[in-house]
């Protein structure tokens, strides 16, 4: 027995077991997220359930669970109930309904039922009654109606896109220009001037833009007139709904689809999720603005934290006289990594937003006051706050890298007549680069997953515009932005429609994981390439 303990085998088993346990936990988490998130886009079949008392429910079965009956005596047969996504929120008031299986009289999967994904009010489930052009009926009945709908859907989507484009791009540009002119008009006003050729000229320009706005409005009106097609769908329970075609995102008949077309739809919906904008208070549509915001915030943070962390670490390790004071500074820096992130958020609000941002506003954007420009949360302040949060990680990693560089390497450079700075720049910095990247990887992973400090420094539920667009100066660091981490919190816990939003939370989590992993992989690749050329140890 003693021999067994001394052999070290139990220790090997212990280490292996610890590793296996961690792996299982991580894999379990990833699996849970993926299973819950990725099934969301798969079009399930639509079941028509007839209940006692002549109630009919048409929808997709999403969950089945035993009915909780705490008062029932033990040994009673369990009864189950199912959760059905019935859609038609505008007609029934809720997307989801629980049905006791004991109440079910009949189930069938009728082929002609159609799912219409709408821009508002969620899905519409039902049978097509007719397709109308204005008041004229173009097709009647499920089959003819379906064909007529499909034929007209592309055109409607094209016009809808055109309308969106005019609203966003053309009218957006006019608004932007007018806002700038108004700001320029404010300046002389603040100085007590209310006339003069310059003011006249600006007013003239304002009027010219207003004219242009009128033109675009007319175009929109004309386009909207062309959107006269609508589809009439009768929902379960006999209610009818007439839906203009530009409200349709897509329509499909899940009970007639094969695996291939379902897979096609699945991919299309994933693509919409990744590239589209959110609808219906984030419970539908895509999360592209959140992806963009997350990635851009992490990039900005990296840009700020890397130089800061490297310089601080170089001073601490290369120039500062090692002693109790430097040790104290080092301990303080390490402990900074343990400060709750919300504290950094509070600091960001107090210092960056109110003090720095407020000062910038008073000095440079006084014309826009009292509307704050930089004196409110924005992507710049959020990135700076996170840079502050992650700078200890970069400092510690860089310092450790510096300590690992053999003294001989510095001496070799100095002995060749290089100055201290030349040695640092040409020999030490390249050699410490892999360590710096390690620090940056850790910092990025931390920043991408952080939510608490962002909530108070610039993240919003729905940002009207991306921080990058076509208007000068193209990069709008003062803008608020969306973030995947906050998005998860928002759809998961703040959504008015919890049932509809829950799968969205899982999908967004999966996406955030994918983004964090790919950002890390990118940095790891760079580090490995650097390691190859700056390998520290001799062969």
């Amino acid at each position, binding site marked *: 027995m003693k021999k067994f303990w001394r052999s070290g085998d139990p220790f090997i088993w212990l280490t292996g077991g610890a590793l296996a346990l961690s792996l299982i936990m991580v894999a379990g988490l990833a699996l849970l997220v993926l299973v819950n998130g990725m099934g969301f886009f798969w079009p399930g079949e639509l079941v028509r359930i007839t209940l006692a008392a002549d109630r009919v429910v048409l929808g997709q079965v999403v969950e089945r669970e035993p009915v909780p009956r705490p008062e029932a005596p033990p040994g009673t047969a369990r009864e189950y109930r199912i959760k059905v996504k019935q859609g038609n929120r505008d007609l029934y008031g809720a997307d989801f309904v629980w049905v006791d299986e004991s109440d079910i009289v009949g189930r069938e999967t009728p082929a002609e039922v159609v799912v219409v994904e709408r821009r508002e009010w969620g899905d519409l489930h039902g049978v097509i009654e007719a397709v109308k052009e204005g008041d004229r009926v173009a097709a009647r009945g499920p089959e003819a109606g379906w064909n007529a709908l499909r034929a007209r859907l592309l055109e409607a989507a094209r016009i809808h896109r055109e309308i969106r484009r005019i609203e966003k791009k053309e009218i957006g540009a006019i608004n932007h220009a007018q806002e700038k002119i108004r700001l320029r008009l404010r300046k002389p006003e603040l100085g007590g001037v209310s006339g003069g050729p310059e003011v006249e000229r600006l007013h003239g320009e304002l009027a010219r833009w207003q004219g242009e706005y009128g033109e675009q409005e007319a175009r929109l009106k004309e386009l909207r007139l062309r959107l006269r097609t609508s589809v009439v769908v009768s929902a379960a329970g006999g209610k009818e709904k007439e839906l203009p075609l530009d409200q349709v995102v897509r329509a499909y008949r899940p009970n007639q689809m094969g695996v291939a077309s379902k897979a096609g739809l699945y991919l299309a919906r994933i693509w919409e999720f990744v590239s589209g904008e959110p609808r219906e208070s984030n419970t539908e549509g895509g999360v592209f603005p959140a992806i963009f915001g997350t990635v851009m915030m992490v990039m900005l943070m990296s840009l700020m934290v890397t130089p800061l962390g490297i310089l601080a670490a170089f001073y601490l390790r290369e120039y500062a006289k090692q002693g109790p004071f430097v040790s104290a500074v080092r301990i303080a820096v390490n402990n900074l990594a343990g400060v709750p992130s919300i504290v950094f958020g509070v600091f960001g609000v107090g210092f960056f937003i109110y003090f720095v941002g407020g000062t910038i506003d008073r000095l440079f954007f006084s014309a826009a006051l009292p509307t704050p420009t930089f004196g409110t949360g924005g992507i710049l302040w959020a990135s700076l706050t996170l840079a502050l949060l992650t700078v200890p990680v970069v400092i510690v990693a860089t310092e450790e890298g510096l300590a690992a560089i053999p003294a001989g390497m510095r001496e070799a450079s100095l002995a060749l*007549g290089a100055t201290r700075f030349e040695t640092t720049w040409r020999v030490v910095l390249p050699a410490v680069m892999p360590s710096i990247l390690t620090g940056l990887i850790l910092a990025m992973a931390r920043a991408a997953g952080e939510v608490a400090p962002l909530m108070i420094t610039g993240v919003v539920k729905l940002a009207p515009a991306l921080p990058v667009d076509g208007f000068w100066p193209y990069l709008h660091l003062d803008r608020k932005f969306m973030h995947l981490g906050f998005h998860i919190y928002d759809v998961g816990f703040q959504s008015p429609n919890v049932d509809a939003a829950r799968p969205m939370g899982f999908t967004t989590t999966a996406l955030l994981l994918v983004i964090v992993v790919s950002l890390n992989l990118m940095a790891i690749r760079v580090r490995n390439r650097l390691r190859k050329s700056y390998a520290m140890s001799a062969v």
Partner: protein
Amino acid sequence: MAADIRLARSLNARAEVASLLEMPMVEIERLSLWYGEKQALRDVSMSVPKHRITAYIGPSGCGKTTLLRCLNRMNDLVDGVRIAGTVRISGTDIYEPALDVTELRKRVGMVFQKSNPFPKPIYDNVAYGPRILGVRSRADLDAIVERSLRAAALWDEVSDRLGESALSLSGGQQQRLCIARAIAVEPDVLLMDEPCSALDPIATARIEELMLDLKAGYTIVIVTHNMQQAARVSDYTGFMLLGELVEFGVTRELFTTPRDKRTEDYITGRFG
């Protein structure tokens, strides 16, 4: 001149004759050095002749490496070091406050005990010094790299893989690369701190051959643990003990007829 005679008087009589015939490259006069409270060099005086190999031998901790590192002021990097006495190289006092240390180090190259190539390509290792000096033209750098690698007897082995990492070379090749790197800036003096202590006998033999080849162009000062090596390659040898230069003289004479009892004990293996 008076100083020279006074200096000469403190030296071994035979070395005095021999080294007075030579051009002195490095002149060390009453050099003492302290690391904090601990004295590492005691009143060392000697002169290193030009275009000769001078070796320091002695037991570990006797101060021979410290003495070597005084010649390019590498000891300046150590905290709490204090130096008294003068060191002149080609007549210039290198401890003069106005002296530019980087200038000095360009004239006094150094090869270390443990080979320490930069983790860069072979080419960049050799070109490092010239680039620091401001050589930018690719053609000039190419010429310098080839000349230095040829001088270090490494060219034939690496000419087709100059872009590979220096760390892919063997230990002996790395040490020769360090020599090539040191002579790429064309120093007057080459300091070698136990350059072969980490090498096998074959690699050691190559380095020793190389030193003999380089003697024509450079003044070489070598610190070695290995008395056979000192006997094989050096023209002059100094024996150091406890920070003191016990005896300094022509190598053959120091090994065959040492004047000092302590030198004799050391070279015959009675202590150390």
